[in-house]
C-alpha cells in the first residue's frame, strides 16, 4: 500500500485532487473522512497515517473536511480548488492581478470572519 493519493483507484486518473495532507502533521484521526458527505476520502489502511483521496470527482469544494481537522492551523490538511475555480481578483490601486494558488501570492490577510472561526457554541440549557 502506497501512501501517495495519486496511486489510488479513485484519484489515479482524476484531473484534480482537492485535498493535500502533510504526513508529518496529520495523525490519521479520520475526522475529515467522517465529515465528508460524499466519501471523497477513505481511511488509510495503516492506522495513524493520513486518509486517502479515493473519490476526488465527488468533491464539491464544501470544505467540511478542513473545518473538522483538529490540526488545521498546524497545516495537516490543505484545500485546493480545481484551477478553473481558483478565484481571481484585481488590486484596485495598482491594477495587479491575483489568483488563489498563484506562484507568488500577496501577503495573507489574517482577518477572521465576523464572530471568529467558532462554528458552533454550546447548547443553552
Amino acid at each position, binding site marked *: 500500500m502506497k501512501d501517495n493519493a495519486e496511486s489510488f483507484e479513485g484519484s489515479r486518473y482524476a484531473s484534480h485532487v482537492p485535498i493535500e495532507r502533510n504526513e508529518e502533521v496529520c495523525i490519521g484521526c479520520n475526522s475529515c473522512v467522517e465529515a465528508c458527505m460524499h466519501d471523497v476520502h477513505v481511511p488509510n489502511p495503516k492506522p495513524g497515517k493520513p486518509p486517502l483521496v479515493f473519490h476526488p470527482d465527488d468533491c*464539491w469544494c464544501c470544505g467540511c473536511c478542513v*473545518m473538522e481537522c483538529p490540526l488545521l492551523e498546524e497545516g495537516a490538511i490543505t484545500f485546493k480548488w480545481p484551477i478553473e475555480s481558483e478565484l481571481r481578483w484585481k488590486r484596485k490601486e495598482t491594477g495587479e492581478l491575483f489568483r488563489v494558488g498563484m506562484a507568488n501570492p500577496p501577503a495573507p490577510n489574517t482577518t477572521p470572519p465576523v*464572530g471568529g472561526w*467558532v462554528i458552533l457554541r454550546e447548547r443553552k440549557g
Partner: protein
Amino acid sequence: MPDSNRRSFLKSVGQRTLAAGVGLGLPSSARPDANDPEGPQNDDSAWPYPIAYDKETEVDVDVVVLGGGVSGCWAAIGAARKGLRVALVEKGNTKRSGSNGSGVDHWQDCAANPASRVSPDELAQDIIDARKGYICGPSRWIKTHEGWDRLQELEQMGMKIRDDDDEFKGAEFRDETTKLLFAFNYQDRTVIRIWGTGLKPALTRECRRLGVKIFDRVMATSLLSENGQPGSRIVGATGVNTRTGEFLVFNAKATILTAASPSRVWQFVDNLGISAHRPPNNSGDGFAMAWKAGAMFTLMEASSLGTQPGVGQGAAGGNSTWYPLSRVDSSGKEIPWFDVNGNLLSTVSERCYPAPGQKRFLGGGRVGASREYRGPAPLSDRQIDEGVKKGTFVLPLYGDLSSMPELERKAIFRLMVAQEGLGWIAYRTLVKAGFDPEKDLPQIYRSHNPPDVRSLPIDMGGLVVDWDMRTNLEGLYAAGEQAYGTWGCAGSSTTGHWAGQRAGEYALRTSKAPVNRQQIENEKRRVYAPVRQTSGTLWKELENGIAKVMQDYCGDVKHEESLKIADKWLTEIDDSELKRLRARTPHELMHALEASNILAVSQLVVSSCMARKASSELLGFHRSDYPAVDPPEWHKFVTVKLEQGQVEVGELPIDYGAPLAHSYAKHS
C-alpha cells in the same frame, strides 16, 4: 457511541439481522472488483470497508425520515419530541450533508420576528401573488408564521443568529433592540443574516440528544407499500449502505420524505462535484422512489437555465449572499443599479428599499417574481452583453466592495460569504491567498450555458402535499424541496418540523402494517444487479446519455413530437443500458442507483411536460405547439402520478390549500 450502548439502542428500536444469504450469489468477503479485468490490478485499490452485500438488517420504528438535510433533521426532531422512536436515514453524513451542509447565510421570510414590519399573513400572501399561485400556499404560510420559532430554537441549540458582539452597531440593517441583522429589504426586515456554518452540526446534535437513531451512509432506495402494491399505504422503506453494501429494511408507521430536488438531470460533467451548484448527491432519490410508489407530483414541467459548472460560492456577484454588491467593469466603470421602474439609483442604501410607491419587493434569489414585487437590480446581463459588444463595458466584471459603506462590505464578505454554503472554505482560502476586501476587486464570473441545458427550479416541482404535508399516499409525508413549491433553509426547517409533528400524530393513532416480503426481494434484485455485472455500462456513461436525451428532446422549447422521442429513448435506455449498469464498489453502486433515479426523474419530467399543453412564462415552460403564454384555462396545477404503470394526469386549482389563513389556524 460505545458498542454496548449501540447494541442496547439497536435492541430498543427493534433492529434485527436476518439470516445471511438470500440468493444473490454475492461472495461476502470478496473485493467487488477482484475479478474485474478492467478494474484496478493491485492492492492499492482495495476497498477499505468490509463488504456486506448479503446482509439484511430490519429496523422497526414509529417514524422513518428519508434524507438527513435541514428538513429531515427538523422532521426527526418534530417526531421525536412526541416521544416516538425515529430513524433518520442519510446517504452522506447528517452533520454535514444536504444543501446547507457546509452552511447558510440568511433566513428568509421570517415575518414573525420582533423587528419585522410586515405580518406573516401579508408576506405569505404577497409571495404567493408574486408567483401567481405557482407555489405551495400551505408551506409558505407555515414558513412566514413559524420561521422565527425555529430560528430561536437554533439559537438555543448553539447557533449564532444575532450581532451580540455589537460589531454592526448603528448599521441601517440592524435592529438595535434584538441585535438582529437584516438583508435585502431593509424596510420589511424579514430576511435575517445568520451564522449558519453551525446549522447542521447543531441540528445533528439535537437529533442525537432527542434519541433519534441516525443511519448515516445509507441511501434510501425504495418505499415499501402495504401488500407491495403501488398506490397503497406506505409502511417503510429500503436502503443500502454506501460503504458496505448492507441492505436495510425500515418498517414504520409513518414515512417522511425529505430528500433534495435533483440537481443534475440535463447537466452532467465528468467532474461531478462541480457540475452543479448543489451537492452532487442531490440526485432526486426521493422523487424517483415516490414516483414508482404512485405518489402525485406537480410543477415538474417547470425549468430554468442551468448554471455553468465550477466556480463556487466565494465568487463575487451571487445575488443573495453578495446583495447589494457594487460592480465595476475592467476599466473601473460602475455598472448602474435601477429600481423596478427603471430609475437610476445613486446610493447603495437605495438598493435595499422598494421603489417610490411600490408596496414591497421580495429579494434574495427568488425565481421569477412578477414585476410588481421585483426589487432593485444592476443592469441586466443582456444589457451588459450589448454594452460589451459596443465597447461600453470591458470584461471581466468585478465586485467593488471597497467603494461600499464599511458595514455593508463587512456584512457581505466577513459575515455572509463566510457563512453561506461553500463559503467558509472560500473565505478562508481567499484571505490566506491575500485577498483583502478593502483593496481588492473580486472577479464576477458570468454564466452562458446553452439554453437546452435546463435545471429544475428548486422551489417548483415536487410532491403534492396537503395541510398536514401528507402526500396522496397514506403514511407518506414530504417536506423541504421534496414538497412542491417549497425551498430554502427556513422553508425546509419549518415544513420539516411541521411534517414531523403531523406524521408523529398519525403514528400515534395508527397501528403498524407489515412490510411485503416479495417487494423486498424484488428490490434487492434491482439494487444489487449492478454489482453482479462483470461488464456493462458505468454510471457516468449512463448519466451523460440521459442528460443528452433531455437536452435534445426536452430542452428550452418543447413540442409533443420531441417529447415523445424523449420518452422513447429514455424507455429504451431503461430497457437496455440500465439493465447492464455495472458497479465495482458500494460507492459506485450508490452512483449507479443515483443514475437510475435520474432516469426515473427524467421520465417524470417528460410526462409532466406532456401533461401541460400550454406555455408559461413563470414556469419557464415553452411549447412551440401551444405558443399562447399563460392562457387562463391553464392557470392551475397539473398533476401526474403512476397508476398501474400508466401516467395519470390530473389537476388542482391554483388556490389549492385555500382558504389559507383559516386552514393554517385550523391545522396549527
